[in-house]
C-alpha cells in the first residue's frame, strides 16, 4: 500500500477540518499559558491552505507540501506559522517529485519536517512545545517501519505515541515560547502546539487506513 497524492490532499483537508472544529479549544489552551491565539492562528492558516489546494491538485506531493508550508508561513504568523510552515516546506523537500508515498517516504518526510521544526525553534524535548508531541510520534513511526509494519498500523502507533507526548506536556514547566514567561505557573496545562501536532498525526492515521 502507498499513499496517493489524492490521499495526501484528503489528509490536509481532514487536518484543516479538525483544526477548525477545535479552534476554540486550542485558543483556550493558549489562553491558559500563552496569549490565546493558537486556534485562531492555525485555523486562519489551514483555511488559507484549503483555498490553495485546488491550484496544486495535479502536482507532486513535494509541491503540495511546499505550497502548504509557504501558505502557512504567509498567513499564520506567531510562533506556529514559521514552525508548521518550515515543517511542511521541509516535508516538501523530502518528497520532491513523488506522486505517491511509501511508508519509507512518509518517515523521511516526517523526519525532515521534524528537523525543520528543531532548526527553526531550537526547542528540545521537555521544553513543553509541539516537539514533545512530535518526538515520540516520530520515534514510534520509525520503530514500526523498522519492524515492517503496514502503513495504517504504523500511523496508528504514531498517533497514539504523539497523543502520549501531548499529554506528557501537562506537568512540564515551559522553557520555550510564551508559556515560558509563566515559569512554574505553566505546569498543569497541556501545550496548545503539542495538541495541534497530535491532530496532525491523528488525522493522518484516520485518513490513510
Amino acid at each position, binding site marked *: 500500500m502507498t499513499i496517493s497524492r489524492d490521499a495526501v490532499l484528503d489528509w490536509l483537508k481532514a487536518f484543516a477540518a479538525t483544526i477548525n472544529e477545535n479552534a476554540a479549544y486550542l485558543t483556550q489552551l493558549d489562553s491558559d499559558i500563552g496569549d*490565546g491565539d493558537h486556534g*485562531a*492562528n492555525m485555523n486562519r492558516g489551514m483555511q488559507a491552505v484549503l483555498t490553495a489546494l485546488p491550484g496544486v491538485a495535479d502536482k507532486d506531493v513535494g509541491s503540495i507540501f511546499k505550497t502548504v508550508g509557504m501558505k502557512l508561513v504567509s498567513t499564520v504568523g506567531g*510562533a506556529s506559522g514559521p514552525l508548521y510552515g518550515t515543517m511542511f516546506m521541509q516535508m516538501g523537500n523530502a518528497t520532491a517529485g513523488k506522486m505517491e508515498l511509501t511508508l519509507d517516504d512518509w518517515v523521511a518526510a516526517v523526519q525532515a519536517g521534524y528537523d525543520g521544526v528543531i532548526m527553526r525553534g531550537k526547542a528540545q524535548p521537555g521544553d513543553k512545545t509541539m516537539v514533545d508531541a512530535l518526538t515520540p510520534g516520530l520515534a514510534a513511526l520509525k520503530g514500526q517501519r523498522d519492524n515492517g509494519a503496514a502503513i495504517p498500523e504504523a500511523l496508528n502507533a504514531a498517533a497514539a505515541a504523539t497523543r502520549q507526548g501531548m499529554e506528557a506536556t501537562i506537568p512540564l514547566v515551559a522553557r520555550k*515560547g510564551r508559556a*515560558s514567561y509563566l515559569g512554574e505557573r505553566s505546569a498543569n496545562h497541556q501545550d496548545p502546539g503539542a495538541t495541534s501536532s497530535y491532530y496532525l498525526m491523528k488525522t493522518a492515521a484516520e485518513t490513510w487506513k
Partner: protein
Amino acid sequence: MKKLINKPEDVVVEELHGIEAAHPDLVKVHYEPNYIVRADAPVKGKVALVSGGGSGHEPMHGGFVGLGMLDAACPGAVFTSPTPDQMLEATKAVNGGAGVLHIVKNYTGDIMNFEMAADLARGDGVEVESVVTNDDVAVKDSLYTAGRRGVGITVIVEKIAGAAAERKHSLKEVADIARQVNDNGRSMGMALTSCTVPHAGKPTFELGDDEMEIGIGIHGEPGRTRMKLKTVHEIVEMMASAIVDDLPYKSGDQVLAFVNGMGGTPLIELYVVYNELHNFLKGRGIKIARNLIGSYITSLEMAGCSITLLELDDQLQALWDAPVKTPGMRWGA
C-alpha cells in the same frame, strides 16, 4: 466583550484604513500583505528601520512610522507576530540603499518570522541587520529559555535608532546604538485587569476584584505572581526596585523614565505613578533627565502600567531630543 468594533476578524484592516485616512501626510498603508511605510519612503541613503509585531499594542508600531522613527511597521493579527512576506515587502519598499534594520521584540514568533524575512531579503540583495529587544525583568533570563520579553524599551529603541538613522549613521552604527539602548534599558509591567482578544471574546485571565497581576507582558499573558491590590506607592516600589537592582542603575546615573499605560489606564493614574517613581529614584540617587508618560505600548484595553528605565549618556539624550514626527510621537517638528 465590549469593544468599538464591527467583526473581530476585520479589526486590524479597519484600523489600517483609519490610519490611512487620518495621516496621509505622514504614512502610506499597503494591504495584502499589510504594512505601513512613511509617506516619503524610501529615503535615499538613509538606513531604514522596520519593526512589527502583533496588533493591539497601538500606537506601537504603526503609530511610530515617520520622520525620526520607523520607516515601516508590519502589523500582525491581534497579539500575533506578522508574517515574513509582510516584513520582506516592507523591507524592500523602504530600502534606500543604506541597508535595513529590523527591530524585533524577543518573542519566539517574532524572532522566527523576522529571521525568515531577513534571510529572504538578503537573498534579494538587501543588507539587513536585526536587533532584538529583551528588557522585561519579570522574566527569568537563561540560556535554556526563550529569554526575556521585549517590552517598553522597544519604543525607546525605535525613537533613538530612528534619530540616529536620520543623521545618516551607517547600518552598523544604528544597530549598535539600538543595542546599546536595549542593553541599558529595563522594564516591568503590572495589570489591574485582563484584556480581551477580539477573536477570543473573553478575558485572557480572570482577576478578583481585589487582585492584581505583577510581571505581565504586553499580550495579556498572566504575569509571574498574583497578589492583593496594593497602594501605588507599594506597587511602584516593587516594580522600580526590581528594575533598578537588575541592571543595576546606580546613584548618580541619569535616566530616561518611561511610565506607560497598558491601554485602559487613565493619564491621571500615570502621573500618580510618575510621582511615586520620581520619589523612589530620588531616594536611590538616580536622576530622571528625560521622561515619557502615556500609553505607547499597550495590551488592548488592559488596565495597568509598566515602567521602563534607560541609562542615558550624552549621545542617547541628544538622539532622544531630536525631532520626531509620527502619528503617535511628535516633537521638534
